[in-house]
């Protein structure tokens, strides 16, 4: 933990109301200002106690505090450094350790995730029935069973998708782990939208995890390994721009130059990472938008709105669709509780935040929720299901654009 970064905090407290855990519990040590104070205590010699580690673990890493901070404190860097320190020095309880091992050996590996598809497919209904019983044994396992979506058929993406009409650009595309395995239809829609807008899309089959889950959980080594591999994959594909449709992955890839050193940092800088909505807004529309008579609510993913500062572009793309009405969700800057692996490791807090978000989403009266991140999609879907208020369909913004560009009657 860099003392210089810690000293940037002037203790003004502007971060407090933006912090999801402060909103839930109203405690100083579960606010960004309080956590920075704990970091300071540790740097000044206080050993990392289990209580202290608990408050760091309880941070969602949503970065809403970074947006709110007038002093420019790099809380994002600080919490990453702190999590790495926690992993190095803090001895976790055996059940916590086992769960973490499963998650970090499973999620960042698309092939292993794929192996999970079969059991998940057989038991979508069963899973939800056993979730309450699992809850008593281990809340994290219950959360996992409850969150995983029904798995659609696999979609095999070609290595290269030609641009429709005049070619305006050539871009690489990240397929991601959870996005690729649980939401392949989102990747297919992303590729189609880019092609319809005149982009040649290059999809290297050798790409793996971008390293986001590991980086956000303090597994520095694993994160660096994944980062280097991702850079190499896109270098081989010969692209200098990579379009990403998962907010968490995009924000991590934009940080590559900061987390890697030397030659690799330079190589990271040579590749430009852009979020799909950021890229489309910058490119400007070429294809015709067909009407979609829908009322949609747009959910700000933290790693898009706070980490990448992308708020206006998705709204701009949605409102440009004829007949589509966009509604705002109140308290939109507060995290839904998904936050990467948070809903697996901190299921109680995640559930409270999910319920809070579901309530506000439903209050908009929209008939479709648009999300730009697979984690948020799973989290909000399961929170809405829990309320038993009838399902609200959730789609990625790429699917909405795809439907409009292709003139489909609705979002599939």
């Amino acid at each position, binding site marked *: 933990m860099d003392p210089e970064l810690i*000293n*940037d*905090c*002037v*203790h*003004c*407290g*502007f971060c*407090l*109301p933006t912090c999801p855990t*402060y909103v839930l*519990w*109203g*405690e*100083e*040590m579960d606010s960004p200002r*309080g956590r920075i*104070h*704990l970091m300071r*205590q540790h740097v000044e010699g*206080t050993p990392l*106690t289990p*209580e*202290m580690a608990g*408050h760091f673990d309880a941070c969602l890493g949503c970065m809403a505090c970074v947006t709110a*901070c*007038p*002093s*420019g404190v790099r809380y994002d860097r600080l919490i990453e450094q702190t999590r790495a320190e926690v992993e190095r020095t803090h001895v976790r309880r055996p059940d916590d350790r086992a769960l973490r091992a499963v998650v970090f050996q499973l999620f960042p590996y698309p092939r292993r995730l794929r192996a999970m598809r079969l059991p998940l497919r057989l038991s979508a209904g069963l899973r939800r029935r056993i979730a309450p019983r699992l809850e008593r044994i281990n809340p994290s396992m219950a959360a996992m069973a409850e969150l995983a979506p029904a798995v659609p058929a696999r979609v095999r993406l070609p290595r290269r998708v030609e641009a429709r009409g005049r070619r305006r650009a050539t871009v690489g595309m990240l397929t991601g782990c959870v996005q690729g395995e649980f939401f392949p239809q989102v990747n297919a829609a992303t590729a189609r939208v880019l092609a319809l807008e005149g982009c040649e899309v290059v999809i290297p089959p050798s790409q793996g995890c971008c390293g986001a889950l590991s980086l956000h959980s303090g597994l520095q080594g694993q994160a660096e390994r994944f980062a280097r591999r991702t850079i190499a994959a896109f270098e081989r594909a010969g692209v200098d721009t990579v379009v990403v449709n998962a907010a968490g992955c995009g924000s991590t890839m934009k940080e590559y130059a900061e987390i890697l050193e030397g030659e690799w940092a330079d190589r990271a800088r040579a590749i430009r990472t852009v979020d799909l909505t950021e890229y489309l807004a910058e490119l400007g529309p070429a294809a015709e938008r067909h009407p979609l008579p829908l009322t949609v609510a747009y959910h700000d993913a933290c790693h898009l709105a706070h980490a990448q500062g992308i708020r206006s572009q998705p709204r701009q793309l949605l409102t440009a669709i004829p007949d589509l009405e966009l509604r705002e969700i109140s308290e939109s800057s507060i995290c839904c509780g998904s936050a990467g692996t948070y809903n697996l490791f901190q299921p109680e807090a995640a559930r409270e935040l999910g319920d809070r978000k579901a309530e506000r989403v439903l209050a908009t009266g929209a008939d479709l929720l648009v999300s730009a991140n697979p984690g948020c999609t799973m989290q909000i879907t399961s929170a809405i299901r829990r309320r038993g208020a009838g399902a609200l369909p959730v789609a990625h913004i790429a699917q909405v654009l795809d439907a409009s560009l292709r003139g489909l009657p609705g979002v599939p």
Partner: protein
Amino acid sequence: MGTKTPDGLVRRLLESLDHRAVITDPVRLRTYECDGLTHHRATPGVVVLPETAEQIAAVVRVCNEYGVPFVARGAGTGLSGGALPRTDGVLIVTSRMRRILSVDVADRRAVVEPGVTNLAITEAVRDLGYYYAPDPSSQQVCTIGGNVAENSGGAHCLKYGFTVNHVLALEIVTPDGDIVELSNTDPGYDLLGAFVGSEGTLGIATKITVRLTRAPETVTTLLAAFDGIEQGGQAVSAIIGGGIVPAAIEMMDALAIEAAEAAVACAYPEGAGAVLIVELDGPVPEVTHQFDEVTRICRENGAFELRVAADPAERAAIWKGRKSAFAAVGRISPAYIVQDGVVPRTALPEVLASIDRLSREYGIRVANVFHAGDGNLHPLVLFDDAEAGAGERAELVSGKILDLCVEHGGSITGEHGVGVDKSRYMPKMFSDNDLDTMQLVRCAFDPRGLSNPGKVFPTPRLCGEVPGVRKGVHPLVESGQAEQF
């Protein structure tokens, strides 16, 4: 647990509070060691997070039982150390009491718990066409309970008045643990007026009835750039002297602009030695007329660029630079002191020139941000805490600025309160007899001196923490004008 609190105290607290609402772990306790003023620190003995007035009353009664002092804290954003904990005491944090209990637009009032943020009240009634007028720059964070304790102001207090003008009734827990209601319609002494601004020394507000103000028909925000603060100051004098009462007139000097620019990229006019933000609100014809007057006065006093906010987004952009100025200074200086003083508006140019002299004499940079309309200065005294002696020099400059305020017939605080930071300056403004009289009021509420002791007053007197410090009978008692309790 805090080693300085008596045995059994925590057990007694747990009788009325959940174990998650009583903090005794030393690492956790330390996160409460200071509020927004970080150079005064004290780790509290125990922290409690009550959710009801009854729980606060129970905690206060336990404190009385053990003779232990207690301090109330909201969001911990205060800038005078008013919520500085006691190592031998209990810190009562209201951050979990954040319900808006009722909104009554017909009667133009809302009833809220003390932990509700200032801005949350406005957000709750905005769609109904109302707002809560006092607007401290920390309004999205600071709590209404803290606003009541400090009688907080804000940019718009020039026209609309301070917290005291917007609180209609209070439910308080008295320093001996009773729950009492005070209202501005009570006959007799204005106890509500005495309580607002008492900085936690007369008890803890547990329910606040605030006045809701009708949103004005129109708002016009204007940004004027000047070569220096002198011209800006003259423009302010001319505007107020011309009989115009804007909703707000704020001024920032070059250094403050630089900080705000670095923090929020507010894009104020380049090369400005000072900017003036003037906001006019009210009925359309009145605002139109005032706007013409203000622009004319600004130009006559040398404004080289005038910008008018065309929509709410541009208005917010103009204010963003001003409202984030305090914390933004963190971008251009490793450490700083936010000072708060008042001078008569007419003395502004002279005082600012003297501050500039002090700054050069001690080699300490001072950025100026102020509510120009009512002469409330917020000099930001910048220093590098890694440099030996810099902190002391900054403290010295900061203190001398207050001397200037008092010399010019002003005050040592406009809106941040006295707290622990300025209690030593109180004798510069008040005689011993004045201070003793204040103590009589305090003793009427808090005879045992348990409610936020060590704040506001320089040394304990009369009934306070150390009985018998004063020798002889108080002059007011002697002359038969007061009775000692």
